[in-house]
């Protein structure tokens, strides 16, 4: 739109005012915005230089806000009408300038109804043009430096504070090189194997000890186990190969275990327990301190040597030493006697098993002859097992009795030729016998340790690269175990399953947990769930009810639902045992005497151990705790 000539002074004035406005705004923004922003940027640059050793050139960024705000002030669009209003306001012109240019630029907006309207608009334009004379932009837009604010002070203070920061010393080139060579090496090792061999260190310690075993098989297997771990660590073999080798070694170990069982006529646990108690009993005897230590360590050679030397020395010196030795040998005699006569409960269990078998044999054939046959077979196996155990315990007792007798014969101070010679022979036999017993105990212990080490090594290798797989397997086993533990309802004439029964782990056989006898007759359908614990005899409404008093899950309404048509009720007479029954204390006492060596406990133990093993396969269990769990399961394992 062309500008009317009479209004040019107005436009010129407004142009000058706008330029002055831009300059004033530039100044204000520089002080208000660019200055504090620049100070903050400078402070950040100084801090970065001092602490992170960035180039000092970054400090020039502090100047960046200045051109930015100046550019903004120069380029920002300004309304001519607003500028005119500002001038009008300053000179109290009642919008004369603004109205003049607005009427001149927008004549179409002036109503045409009354000719006086147009005349007044023209008059406004003329008055505007006249009013501009003598007006200057300077008073309208004053250049004023804004007063400092708190933000400015804070920004300056931050910059000054940053200047006080000490300069960090640059890292030496050698350090960088050393650091650079170490870190990637660790990274590459970790990336290569994904193994943290520090976790396997306790296992390797144990294997190193077993490597020095006198038993060749244990030493060889331990050595090879160490070799597998070393190869895995160095990357020579992968996980699959390592597991293959471990499986091979496991078979060797099983063979060694079987050979040891064949070789040991005596019950190693009874023998080991007797020697352990012997060590405890004689350790207070001063002369026997070293012997007790060797006995506690199951160091057969050292035991034999120390005991022989002690007895030879006592024979040679006589006097107090001989008296003390005799005293210690008497204590040894008492301790061995006590251990030899210790009741393990096997005999009682065997008698009980014999009674059970006879009862089973006398029992009439039930509806299910196969089941009857299976029950009979189980009881026979149980009896045979207990008989074998009893024989081995007898051997162990004989061994302990023999040592006791030798300890008794080794005492005395008679210097008569025959008596002295007889005593020396007894002493020699005692030393040798103790050594042999200790050796057998040690073999058994080391075989157990080797088995532990094997399990641990397998677990470690599996965990090394299959944490996800092991987690899955663990979950599956947990689900399997939980399902089996819950049991099943009795239905369709089938008995309810025991609490822990059925397929757990790899077994497909369903076996009741409890022990005892059950007899079932009649018809009916049991429904519902229930748990009961106890022992006794009785008739169950379940046809073909399985074996097992004790914990079981069966029907609350054993005769079925009386409201249903398909129920055929039949009254049965039950002859319960009278009396208070077995107390909790008696149960514990029996268990402590008989141990947990029943067949069903063995199965329970295997199931639980399997579950515990899967739990131990997870990385969540610390190594120390893993060993503790292992030890716990060793302690409660069935004694057979």
């Amino acid at each position: 739109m062309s500008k009317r000539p009479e209004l040019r002074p107005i436009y010129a004035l407004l142009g000058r005012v706008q330029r002055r406005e831009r300059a004033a705004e530039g100044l204000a923004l520089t002080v208000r915005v660019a200055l504090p922003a620049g100070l903050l940027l400078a402070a950040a640059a100084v801090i970065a230089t001092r602490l992170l050793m960035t180039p000092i050139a970054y400090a020039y960024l502090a100047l960046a806000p200045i051109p930015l705000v100046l550019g903004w002030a120069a380029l920002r669009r300004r309304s001519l009408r607003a500028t005119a209003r500002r001038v009008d306001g300053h000179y109290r012109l009642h919008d004369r300038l603004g109205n003049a240019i607005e009427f001149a630029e927008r004549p179409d907006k002036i109503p045409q109804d009354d000719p006086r309207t147009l005349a007044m608009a023209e008059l406004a334009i003329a008055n505007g043009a006249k009013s501009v004379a003598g007006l200057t932009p300077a008073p309208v837009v004053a250049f004023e430096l804004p007063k400092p604010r708190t933000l400015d002070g804070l920004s300056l203070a931050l910059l000054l504070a940053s200047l006080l920061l000490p300069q960090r010393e640059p890292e030496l080139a050698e350090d960088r090189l050393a650091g650079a060579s170490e870190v990637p090496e660790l990274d590459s090792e970790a990336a290569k194997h994904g193994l943290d061999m520090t976790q396997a260190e306790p296992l390797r310690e144990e294997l190193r000890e077993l490597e020095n075993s006198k038993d060749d098989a244990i030493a060889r297997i331990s050595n090879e186990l160490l070799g597998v771990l070393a190869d895995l660590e160095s990357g020579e073999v992968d996980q699959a190969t390592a597991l293959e080798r471990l499986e091979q070694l496991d078979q060797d170990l099983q063979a060694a275990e079987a050979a040891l069982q064949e070789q040991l006529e005596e019950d190693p646990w009874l023998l080991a327990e007797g020697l352990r108690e012997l060590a405890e009993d004689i350790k207070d005897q001063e002369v026997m301190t070293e012997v007790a230590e060797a006995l506690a360590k199951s160091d057969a050679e050292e035991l034999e040597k120390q005991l022989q030397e002690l007895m030879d020395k006592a024979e040679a010196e006589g006097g107090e030493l001989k008296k003390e030795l005799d005293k210690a040998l008497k204590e040894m005699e008492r301790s061995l006697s006590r251990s030899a006569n210790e009741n393990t409960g096997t005999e009682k269990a065997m008698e009980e098993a014999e009674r059970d078998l006879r009862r089973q044999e006398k029992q009439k054939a039930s509806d299910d002859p196969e089941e009857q046959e299976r029950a009979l077979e189980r009881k026979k196996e149980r009896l045979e097992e207990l008989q074998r155990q009893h024989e081995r315990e007898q051997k162990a007792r004989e061994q302990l009795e023999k040592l006791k007798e030798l300890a008794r014969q080794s005492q005395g101070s008679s210097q008569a030729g025959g008596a002295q010679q007889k005593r020396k022979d007894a002493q020699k036999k005692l030393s040798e016998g103790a050594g042999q017993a200790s050796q057998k105990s040690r073999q058994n212990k080391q075989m157990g340790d080797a088995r532990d080490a094997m399990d641990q090594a397998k677990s470690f290798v599996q965990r090394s690269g299959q944490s996800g797989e092991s987690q899955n397997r663990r979950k599956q086993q947990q689900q399997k175990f939980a399902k089996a533990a819950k049991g099943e309802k009795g239905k369709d004439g089938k008995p309810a399953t025991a609490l822990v029964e059925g397929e757990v782990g790899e077994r497909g056989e369903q076996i009741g947990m409890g022990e005892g006898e059950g007899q079932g007759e009649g018809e009916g359908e049991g429904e519902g769930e229930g748990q009961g614990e106890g022992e006794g005899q009785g008739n169950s409404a379940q046809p073909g009810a399985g074996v097992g008093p004790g914990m079981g899950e069966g029907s609350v309404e054993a005769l079925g639902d009386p409201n249903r048509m398909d129920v055929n009720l039949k009254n049965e007479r039950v002859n319960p045992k009278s009396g208070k029954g077995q107390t909790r204390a008696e149960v514990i006492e029996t268990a402590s005497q008989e141990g947990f060596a029943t067949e069903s406990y063995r199965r329970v133990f295997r199931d639980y151990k399997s579950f515990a093993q899967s739990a131990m396969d997870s990385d969540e269990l610390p190594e120390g705790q893993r060993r503790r769990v292992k030890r716990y399961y060793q302690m409660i394992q069935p004694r057979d």
Partner: protein
Amino acid sequence: MTEISAPISAPSADTAAQLQVLAADLRTLVDEVQQVVVGQDMVIRGVITCLLAGGHGLLEGVPGLGKTLLIRTVAEAVSMSFNRIQFTPDLMPADILGTSFLVEGEDGSVGRTLQYQPGPIFANIVLADEINRATPKTQSALLEAMAEKQVTTGGQTRALPSPFFVLATQNPLEQEGTYPLPEAQLDRFLFKINVEFPDEEELISILDRTTGSHDGKVRPVLTGERLVEMQQLVRAMPVTPSLTRYVVRLLRATHPDDKNATEGVKQYVRFGGSPRGAQSILLAARVRAALEGRESPSAEDVRAVVPQALRHRVLLNFEGEAEGVSTDAVLEQVLAKVKPD
């Protein structure tokens, strides 16, 4: 009607001259009124603005501030018919609008006829004194008169004399026995003018004038016809588009849901100003410019008349009433926030 002694000036053909004459006449009118009424410049200007804009005025102030005197003085100065109606609770609409009564025929042959007797509403300037003392029914009788400048009684509509102004007063203190004006009626007032208590100097002048021998006579300086001419000249005054837009934005900003609404409006206002409010602002701004001899109004004129034009149109909500918020304070916030282009 009082006879005009001497018109101070005649309208000129030249627009600029007309504007100058208008300003001079208005100054004369103000001076004449101030012969009787001491101080109250803003109130006098407000009442004169109502006259020139052709609108009605509502004066609110405590008793004894000269509201009635001011209106009567203005009426006398413009030399137009004037009626005062004292509103009371028992005042009936017929008392204002007039009533019909039976008239016997002169010769007895025609019989009796109904004859309409006009009420006091039939005057150029009507002073509705203490308007809020009448019942709503009576107050409503003024609605048609104020909006349409006509009255309807007995099925017959009658035009009121032109120009027609209602200048009402009300007392803000006495609430008992009063009936607040309905919003529809309030909206018909161009201005609501608050009459403030005079300051010390003004009070001294009041005492001097009213307790001495001063007669306080008012000389008529304008006729009704001249007033109509002046109204037409004011309405012919051009307004820039930016100013019209400014008025619209100001009015919209008094509505709580408008984007330019201030926090005070959002919190305390129930309803903002009506379109009549915007008309009142623009008309009043023109009158203000005319009073100062200018040919078009400015943003400053708009800002000056906004409180009087909108204070009775912006309705506070319960929270605003309970907190004692004044409408003027809310409008000040609006004026501070909304700027012209």
